[in-house]
């Protein structure tokens, strides 16, 4: 079962990072970063099937594909920014983590502005 592989891998990585932390802190951080990346890659591969099933569902429900793409982009941007911010926190850089999250929020807002504008236009057309 894959969950056992994932659990064993992460526990092993945690122990190795802990044993490296006293002698070589940077190496411990790189180890935990590498292990986190492997785990995320496994998760993303699982998500690929889910995403294709969702897009088929959206197509059969006659939702425009642009909306599903927007949703997926939001999920992707937030996951990547969380990965980067958590790595900064693991390295002890809380300030960098906050600024990374803030930059990701700015990117998300710039993505959402066209949709918000079109919704506002529709509302303004309805109001006489």
């Amino acid at each position: 079962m894959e969950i056992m592989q994932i659990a064993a891998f992460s526990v092993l990585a945690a122990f190795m990072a802990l044993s490296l932390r006293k002698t070589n802190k940077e190496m411990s951080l790189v180890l935990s970063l590498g292990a986190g990346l492997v785990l995320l890659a496994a998760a993303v591969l699982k998500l690929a099937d889910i995403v294709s099933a969702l897009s088929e569902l959206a197509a059969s429900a006659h939702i425009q594909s642009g909306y599903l793409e927007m949703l997926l982009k939001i999920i992707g941007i937030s996951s990547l920014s969380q990965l980067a911010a958590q790595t900064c926190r693991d390295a002890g850089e809380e300030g960098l983590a906050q600024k990374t999250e803030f930059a990701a929020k700015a990117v998300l807002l710039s993505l959402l502005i066209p949709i918000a504008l079109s919704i506002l236009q529709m509302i303004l057309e309805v109001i006489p």
Partner: protein
Amino acid sequence: MQIELLFRIAGIGILVTVISQILNRTGREDMAMLSTVAGLVIVLLMVINLVADLFSSVQSIFRLY
């Protein structure tokens, strides 16, 4: 699951620590620092491949181009 990668990174970490401590004890502290930095660069190069893989798969799945 690339378990070998994990063991490789941990092995390089332990090796670099041992080498740097030996160099510290025999008095060559600059070489010790250099070996630590070299070990870090090697390990980072290994991790960068993983980063590239993850980013390309995230890009293709979440359609972030």
